[in-house]
């Protein structure tokens, strides 16, 4: 650079700004972790206290409604992935290789992921009450398929389009059937894409709130619903809320690490590879 001095100053500024961003993200999370590790009375004492530390909040959370909600969330999110992923893979392959339904179907699959959830939540609520699905975990899984299935299909669509066609053509020459090609060639080659789609489907279901609020019952509440009720109905339970938030974030934070590369691609629906 022409002026080395100013370039070094710029670098210091950049370094300082980057730290400011990182701290702005980390400090609120560390503060929450701190609150989760203190007894209820100390969690919101001001000026803040540092100790005595305890794991009691986590034990209490896991033994109470939060633990139940975590189990519900785990069950719902897992079922959404287990049911939705095979359906999404079939749909995505038909769209990718055979352009089934043309542009219209592609647009519909994309648009479904971006609907304002409230538009779908209202009729689902009314229909589930008529069908007796309101308040059940099965109903919640079905409702989640509405956004998770097209989301996973869109991610896989991009993945399938990126596979080299020659392998599939060679298999056809060797006498494989279309199903044989799909199950023995395409799916095994797409294992990373399937895994990423599964993780993202899990993450979306795990964090979803509006459908869960309207469609779950007393025994089927998921973790965001239970957390949202903690702070409003029973006054201020900082340590409990903090422990619940920490417990709800940990599984998805660990899972997301595994699909780092696909996270951005998946969440931008393929605009950034």
């Amino acid at each position, binding site marked *: 650079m022409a002026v080395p001095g100013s*370039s070094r100053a710029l670098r210091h500024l950049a370094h300082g700004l980057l730290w400011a961003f990182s701290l702005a993200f980390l400090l609120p999370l560390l503060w929450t972790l701190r609150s989760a590790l203190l007894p209820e009375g100390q969690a919101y004492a001001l000026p803040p206290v540092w100790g005595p530390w305890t794991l009691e909040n986590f034990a209490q959370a896991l033994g109470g409604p939060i633990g139940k909600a975590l189990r519900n969330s785990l069950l719902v999110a897992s079922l959404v992935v287990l049911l939705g992923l095979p359906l999404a893979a*079939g749909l995505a*392959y038909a769209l990718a290789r055979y352009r089934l339904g043309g542009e219209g179907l592609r647009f519909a699959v994309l648009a*479904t992921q971006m609907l*304002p959830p409230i538009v779908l939540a209202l009729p689902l609520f009314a229909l589930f009450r008529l069908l007796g699905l309101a308040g059940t975990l099965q109903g919640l899984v079905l409702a989640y398929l509405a956004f998770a299935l097209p989301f996973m299909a869109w991610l896989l669509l991009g993945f399938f389009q990126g596979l080299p066609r020659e392998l599939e053509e060679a298999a056809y020459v060797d006498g494989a059937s279309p199903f044989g090609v799909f199950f023995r060639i395409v799916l095994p080659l797409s294992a990373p894409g399937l895994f990423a789609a599964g993780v993202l489907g899990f993450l979306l279901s795990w964090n979803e709130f509006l459908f869960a609020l309207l469609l779950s019952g007393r025994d089927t509440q998921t973790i965001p619903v239970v957390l949202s009720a903690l702070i409003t109905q029973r006054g*201020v339970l900082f340590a409990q809320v903090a422990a619940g938030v920490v417990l709800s974030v940990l599984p998805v934070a660990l899972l997301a690490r595994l699909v780092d590369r696909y996270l951005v691609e998946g969440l931008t629906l393929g605009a950034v590879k």
Partner: protein
Amino acid sequence: MRGRQAAQLLALPGLLVLLGVVAFPLLYAFFLSLTRYSFLRPQYTWAGLARYREALEDPYFLHALGLTALYVALTVGLTLALGLLLAVLLHQGLPLRGFHYFAVSLPMLIAPVGVGLIWKMILHPELGILAYLFGGVDFFGDPRYALLSLALVDVWQQTSFAALVLLAGLRSLPKEPLEAARVDGATPWQAFWYVTFPLLRPVLLALLVLQTLAEVRTYDLVYVLTRGGPGSATDLVSYYIYRKAFLGLDLSGAGAMGYLLLLLTLALVALYYRFLTRG
């Protein structure tokens, strides 16, 4: 031909599920929006387009739409600006890159309900650490600050996502144009504005549409932090429609408003689709 039939069979189960949980409910909602159906009087009394006319004449709905437009402009603008700055910083190869990347990638993974609770505790007017450090401002209870506070909490989370998207964009840019600019004696500033920024524009545009769509959906944060209040200071449109249906018990009126919101959204999605398929 056999391949096509196989494809139809493979797609069928997924399509049937989507018909059941998306297409049919949307049609049902449209039908409801043409009636006067409420939870108190669950009868399909035909109303034609009257519910749509009422929605467009409802001052609270119009207020919610206007407030949402303001909120979207505020959050999307801030998110893109901060996200771009942060992405450029992460792209510089400064020390501890892995650590910073880790810190930046955390907020986007948290459920919005969790984000709302974290900040509700930190900004609590009596017991929050920030209120303690900076004097007791009631961030969410004061109508002057409520919308801005809500927006800033949202921006805190969205900036994390925007930065990672733009960083991926920066990493995928070709290196030659930047090197050519450097050889020609461009300053880092010039190189950024005249080379990097134009190359990054498609990613920025995609993010702009995606973030706009995401912010129109804002519901969870409102529910946890303000419930639309104080008064109607943070009554964003998704929350207002929810209230209309479940507190006002007017399912078909809320349905009409939902459909109006859906039309606005579809226009944006069409824009995004054209954008995705152009490349």
